[in-house]
């Protein structure tokens, strides 16, 4: 005891620094101070440099009208009228559009190939292996250009347009894009939409009741057919009862190009194909690894209680594989959104192409434009990674 108290007196002069709280507090203050100073230092330098070089700053340019045209846009825009803010919005929407479709396609394709990799058909598993290895190991930029030049540019020319709807001229394909007849709702179409909504609610209710019954009595009932019938018949009958209030905007060859309907540009198709395939190859690997990580006994046990192979996968193996599939899957989605920034290579007007390239070249303001673009990507990624974190929290193994 005496010894211990003696030690304490001796170390009195240091005790302040040896206090755990003081130390951790000090380190934290130090970290914040260093980072804060660095940020301040960079900002003050930038401000000084911008001023010294006579470069104007601020976001006023966003209200200036942009003089260039945009080929593919989801918003109303006319050159000379639309502002750079509109250009920004169009770019954002275009990036989100391509990312959305590519995420869906790559996930479906990735799961498909991942399962095929484990197929017992030798050729199929080898072809899917080749698919994965080829598309994983070649830089995406090269792939995008390949799909554009090597595939979609080689589609027939306008005058030899392919009619995919067998003579009905509703779905046309040529090297300027995919042209589709597009429905234009007339007055009274809202009733059909309403009927469809009602059908969905009803189908969900039926399913809910069937599940409840299965849980209570163990009886399975097939509700698929009933729901499908409901979903198709109800809206259709309302549609015809209200007098088919829907017109079709049909693409027609006018001068150089088809006009009317909805068009998907070859650049979009090429980008969609390359992004989906590149990421599907990565996702396939994650899926394969996930399935392999599930103990073989699980599948064997499921088979032994008489489940069919398909149900073994969907009810036993995949649910257990999901915790190890989802994190790489979601980080793939994140990368996909970021990789869509390579769109400029084939002329798809995404945010980088419209805003960081064309707009930047017109108005300068590099700091503001690059900053805004980065903020956009950050927001998207943060939302996706928040999804991942929520999922991780839910499935994380609970340790002591």
């Amino acid at each position, binding site marked *: 005891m005496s010894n211990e108290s003696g030690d304490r007196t001796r170390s009195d002069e240091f005790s302040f620094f040896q206090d755990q709280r003081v130390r951790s507090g000090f380190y934290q203050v130090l970290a914040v101070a260093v980072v804060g100073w660095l940020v301040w230092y960079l900002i003050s330098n930038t401000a000084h440099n911008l001023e010294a070089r006579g470069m104007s700053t601020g976001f006023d340019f966003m209200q200036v009208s942009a003089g260039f045209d945009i080929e593919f846009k989801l918003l109303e825009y006319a050159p000379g009228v639309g502002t750079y803010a509109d250009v920004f919005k169009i770019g954002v929407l275009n990036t989100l559009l391509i990312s959305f479709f590519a995420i869906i396609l790559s996930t479906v394709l990735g799961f498909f190939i991942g399962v095929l990799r484990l197929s017992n058909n030798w050729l199929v598993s080898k072809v899917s292996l080749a698919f994965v290895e080829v598309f994983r190991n070649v830089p995406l930029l090269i792939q995008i250009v390949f799909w554009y030049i090597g595939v979609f540019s080689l589609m027939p020319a306008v005058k030899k347009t392919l009619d995919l709807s067998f003579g009905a001229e509703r779905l046309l394909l040529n090297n300027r894009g995919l042209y589709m007849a597009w429905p234009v709702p007339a007055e009274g179409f809202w009733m059909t939409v309403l009927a469809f909504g009602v059908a969905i609610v009803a189908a969900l209710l039926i399913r809910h009741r069937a599940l409840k019954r299965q849980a209570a009595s163990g009886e399975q009932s097939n509700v698929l057919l009933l729901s499908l019938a409901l979903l198709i018949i109800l809206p259709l009958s309302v549609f015809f009862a209200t007098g088919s209030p829907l017109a079709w905007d049909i693409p027609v060859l006018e001068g150089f*190009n088809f006009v009317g309907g909805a068009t998907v540009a070859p650049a979009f198709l090429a980008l969609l194909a390359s992004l989906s395939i590149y990421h599907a190859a990565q996702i396939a690997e994650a899926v394969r690894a996930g399935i392999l990580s599930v103990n073989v006994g699980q599948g064997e046990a499921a088979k032994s209680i008489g489940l069919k192979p398909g149900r073994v996968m969907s009810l036993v193996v995949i649910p257990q594989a999901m915790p190890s599939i989802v994190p790489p899957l979601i980080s793939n989605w994140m990368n996909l959104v970021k990789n869509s920034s390579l769109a*400029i290579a084939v002329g798809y007007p995404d945010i980088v192409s419209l805003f960081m390239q064309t707009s930047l*070249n017109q108005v300068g303001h590099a700091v503001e434009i690059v900053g805004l673009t980065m903020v956009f990507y950050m927001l998207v990624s943060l939302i996706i990674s928040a999804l991942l974190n929520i999922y991780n929290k839910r499935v994380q193994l609970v340790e002591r």
Partner: protein
Amino acid sequence: MKFKSTLLTTTAVAVSFLSGVGVASADSTLETVKDRGLLRCQVGPPSPGYYNLDSDGDWYGLDVSICRSVAAAIFGDADKLEIQSVSSQARFTALANGDSDLLSRTATWTMSRDTQLGLDFLQPNFYDGQGFTVRKDSGITSAMELKGAKVCVTSGTTTELNLTDFSRQNSLKISNVTFDDYNVRDDTYLNGGCDAVTGDKSSMAGNISSFPVPEEHMILPETLSKEPLAPAVRHGDNQWADIVRWAVYALINAEELGVTQANVDEMRDSSKDPNILRMLGAEGNLHEGLGLDKDWAYNIIKSEGNYGEIYERYMGGGEQGLGIDRAGTLNALWKDGGLMYAPPMR
């Protein structure tokens, strides 16, 4: 104790970092370049005719010759040069922030660039204009017939803007497809993805010559825009601007006076034309105003030749040339009806 020393070290490091990053005073550009012993001249990603790499990895082209001329004028050695290849988004910032001493890269001289970006554009070394390329069998003979057409264009320049302006003026409803790289643009056009290509006429002439069957394509007569392509320097250093400006003038004057790479020695020694003697430094003291040696112009001609020779080599029929005729264009000498006109050297 250990903790205290950590604290001391951290402070010491922070202080030394603060003081270490000192602010260097801005000398005149000529001084900086001479001290460095190297001219940093900015070009873009390779672009045929103006600046591109050969299979030995050396730069060549019309704009590269301007870089080399300035280096030759300052050092007497055109190889004391660092060519910087900078993307189009970064080009003006890289000049403004002092990374580059000189920008010589098909930059169009426009009012907004000249007045708002802190730059000074100097004597243009090429006059270009935007035009359209179409297939001959399309039957189009004038740009006014492009109503509703799809036109391929490269981004990163004023080309898109000019195209939209042209379409609006004449209510043609042209839709543009924008690319990053003109190879992809040209392939799209060749495969029929576009009805026409738009770009600077000079570079399009070069591109057509690389098509599988060049005879099937033609450039329409209309010119959409004025594109004076000029070297640029930072605003505010007049001596430096003078050096670059007069380097270009020396090339033009040399052509006018008949001084070539081959005869420049002979001209300096035995010419009777005082204009030539003054230019090549055999007479007078013109070099003093620029702060260069008296044989600055001689060094330029000796290493690069005159403007006509450079044009022939890279734009005309030379082995590395794009094969664009000069006669009758804006790039001919003023005596031949062009715009290449330099103030007298006296």
